[in-house]
């Protein structure tokens, strides 16, 4: 499964991508919201992990743009934030995220959410 990870923090990007690669996922990465929007088209990911606090274009706006474009609106997006604050989940879902998770990442929980989209997209 090919996943686009949009994350500006170098350490978070490195950690999460390495752990997901070990689990068998193919990871492509973008470092800000603008690059994330571009790569949602050029890299044809099957799912997007979107950090919401991003430079240039933040994750909420990037999500709105991806979900607003006919060629990318079908791609499931899981929004990630560092805050476990009330309202963040609703804000992410309003922007168009299909799911939401908080940092620090609990890998098994995140993989459970990723896999739920695999079964949906494969019709299983």
């Amino acid at each position: 499964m090919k996943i686009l990870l949009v994350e500006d923090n170098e350490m978070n990007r490195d950690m999460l991508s390495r752990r997901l690669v070990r689990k068998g996922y193919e990871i492509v990465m973008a470092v800000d919201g603008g690059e994330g929007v571009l790569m949602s088209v050029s890299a044809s990911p099957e799912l997007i992990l979107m950090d919401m606090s991003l430079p240039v274009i933040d994750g909420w706006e990037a999500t709105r743009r991806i979900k607003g474009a006919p060629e990318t609106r079908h791609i499931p997006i899981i929004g990630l934030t560092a805050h476990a604050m009330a309202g963040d989940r609703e804000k992410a879902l309003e922007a168009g995220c299909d799911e939401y998770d908080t940092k620090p990442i609990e890998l098994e929980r995140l993989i459970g959410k990723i896999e739920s989209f695999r079964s949906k997209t494969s019709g299983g």
Partner: protein
Amino acid sequence: MDLTSAARIGQIHREMAELCLALKPPVDELSDQLGRLRRKALETGVSDAAADLDRMCAASDRLQALTAGLISAPPPAAPEGRAWLAAHEHLRHDLRTPLNAVKGYGELLMEDWQEGGARSLMPELRQVIATANQLLSMIDDH
């Protein structure tokens, strides 16, 4: 600056100083634990983990500097109050970021070290992750 803002800035300043004072002992402990783990890893010859351990130590150093700065910083003078407040709005986030790095790289190494010669390092690594989790809970609960 009105009185409400001044009172709010004063309150946040006191809360952050109190939080950082409470965090200091486990933050120092985390630094010591990482130092011991790094030394033992090098002695054991687990050289492929050196870069990840360096990142964890760098994150721990950042956390130590951040908490020390917040404990000793004087309350902001009135003209700088608003800027200070804006800069410190995301302070809990700033405290969590290095801890998330320590925890994440620690879990990455845990996966690496499940098998093979590095298994002897697991007790120290578990301690590091436990201290990072304790600090994250303190930041969330304070």
